[in-house]
């Protein structure tokens, strides 16, 4: 018997932690990337939980896909980060407001 509630609760907590990490983080861009990883993993956990609970393999397949995408995403993110550091000399999120309209 799978404790679906508990598993989903854990997934949700991790998701919210990732969310809060993005919103409250003012200093470091790497932390933001890590938070995104956290969110993706939380979603993965939820996928796998429901896949097991519903006896459907599709959820697990999607979670594998998500892992792949997450790896690619963090690689691209780190690359952008390095390039950004070279241009601006800082990775502080608070100073990244060039999108301001």
């Amino acid at each position, binding site marked *: 018997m799978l404790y679906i509630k508990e598993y989903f609760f854990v997934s949700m907590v991790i998701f919210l932690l990732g969310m809060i990490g993005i919103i409250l983080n003012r200093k470091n861009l790497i932390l*933001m990337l890590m938070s995104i990883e956290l969110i993706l993993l939380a979603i993965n956990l939820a996928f796998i939980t429901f896949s097991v609970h519903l006896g459907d393999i599709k959820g697990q397949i999607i979670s594998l896909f998500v892992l792949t995408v997450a790896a690619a995403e963090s690689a691209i993110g780190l690359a952008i980060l390095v390039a950004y550091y070279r241009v601006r000399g800082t990775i502080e999120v*608070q100073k*990244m*407001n060039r999108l301001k309209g």
Partner: protein
Amino acid sequence: MYITIVLLPLVSAIVAGFFGRFIGSKGAQFITTSSIGLTFLLSSFAFYEVALSGSPCYVTLFPWMDSGILFVSWGFMFDTLTVTMLVVITSISFLVHMYSIEYMESDPHIPRFMSYLSLFTFFMLILVTADNFVQLFAGWEGVGLASYLLINFWFTRLQANKSAMKAFIVNKIGDFSLSLAMYTIFLVFKSLDFATVFALAPSFYNNTITLFNMEVDALTVIGILLFIGAVGKSAQIGLHTWLPDAMEGPTPVSALIHAATMVTAGVFLIIRCSPLFEYAPFSLMVITFVGSITAFFAASIGLVQNDLKRVIAYSTCSQLGYMVFACGLSNYSVSMFHLFNHAFFKALLFLSAGAVIHAMNDEQDMRKMGGLVSALPITYSMIVIGSLSLMGFPFLTGFYSKDVILEIAFAKFTIEGTFAHWLGTISAFFTSFYSFRLIYLTFLNNPQSNYNTFIKAHEPVFFMLIPLFLLGFGSIFIGYITKDMFIGLGSDFWGNAIYISPNNLNMIDAEFLPVNIKLLPVIFSISGATLSVILYTLFAKNIVTFKLSPIGKMTYGFLSKKWYFDKVYNEYVVQKLLDFGYNVSFKTLDRGLIEVIGPYGIANTINAFVKRFTNLQSGYVYHYAFVICISLTFFIFFYGLWFMIQDLFDIKLFFLFIINLLFISSKY
């Protein structure tokens, strides 16, 4: 022939107006005068054929409006009433055209002037020949337009501009009422043809219509609305203020429009609609009261006016009052008879006054004239003839109609009849008083003008004298010649043009009044004239002392300020309306509410919102993430709970929110 009567003046107006620069002043004068002369000739034939031989003529040309049950065609009706008006209009118009040739000879805009005169004649003919209310209304508006153009003929004069606008706007009130009357007639009768409406009038007796949520008598409403229209055009009390001011126009215009023809359009309307009025006794009573009050008040104002033309203008107003109350007493034929006679002697008075003004270098103030009897003997005799005729001196034209009017008023034996009789008799006294005051101040008094003007004063020559002679002849004999035809007992002259309910007939009662009642108007007239001459010859100083005494100041001021009508209108109506127009409808509504809700409001709202949204666009990633998170939460919340909260949200509420937002963000 009948269509030619109507169209010839239009052709001459077009030729003189649009091609005046090609045909020149002389050409314009010749063409317009000869066309109107020809029209007069044709009108005389029409008069013979229709009135004397008793064969009314109806000409329907082609449909004008055809929509559902509304069918209006261009139709011309020539019954006795119409041809009588035709003779009056075309003869006076012809004489005025002829008179203008000399009177306006030094004016640079002669073709335009002649064209306007002919245009006026055309519209007047449309008005009197109409066989339905719409066509009558077209002529009615047309004469208003022509009146505006002619008063404003010397358009560089500010006073003329103001008078013309006043005439037009005050007339518009009456026109508006006339159009309301037309709508009511169409509502009740489902037709606007005279023939249909008048034939059906008895069957709608005591019918009611709903007006302002009240059940009122249909014919009374129609009668009163028609009468207000007539009040505007015929310068009865209340809407009379334009008539004295209209004297700013050239004198021939005053003679043609503001004495003989256009102002009688209101009386004509009442006479034309006699079958309607006969079944609306209450409106007849209103007409009697308004007419007799007008006769009295205009005569009393005429007592103290110093402008030569204004005295005659108030006299016109007073005589129109006589005509109107004669209509109110159901004696339409008598009213028409007075209209007919009045046209001649009032045109004579105006044209003679024009000759005086012409001789005095455009001086109109009677106090600056005097002694002209030696310089202008012919004009003097003409003014005396006109005045004697006006005041009803026995056996002149005015005597026949005016005395009959006062007799029928007495013979009515009702409250309004007696009221009209007394006011009319007192007005007769006033009339002769101011007529002889005019004659005395202008002709008999010691010369008050400056030496050069007086020395150069001369009689007019041919073109101005011929109309004077003809009108003088008319002023003496017309009444005597036509009395039995117009108002003789048992005369079948009017045919079906006028309907008098058998209950309202009182010509026979009027025939057998006591002699002293019959003589009363003449006695009053002669005593008024005598008093006037005695006062101004022997007691001239006492008049001045009386004017300077407190009570004299009060009465004189009251009369010379025209019973304060203009003051009250300007201060309590016009000024208030202007203030309302500027402060409320312009500033608050047009530039305020409409713009806040409309263009400026929307533009400002969008601007203000855009500023706020710009502030929202901080550029920080964590802000965006936060907004996304919060919005998502709200969306999910509303989506999940929509079944609970949908009752709180109303489309009207949203509308109010949006309007509020417009006001909050607008700068006004």
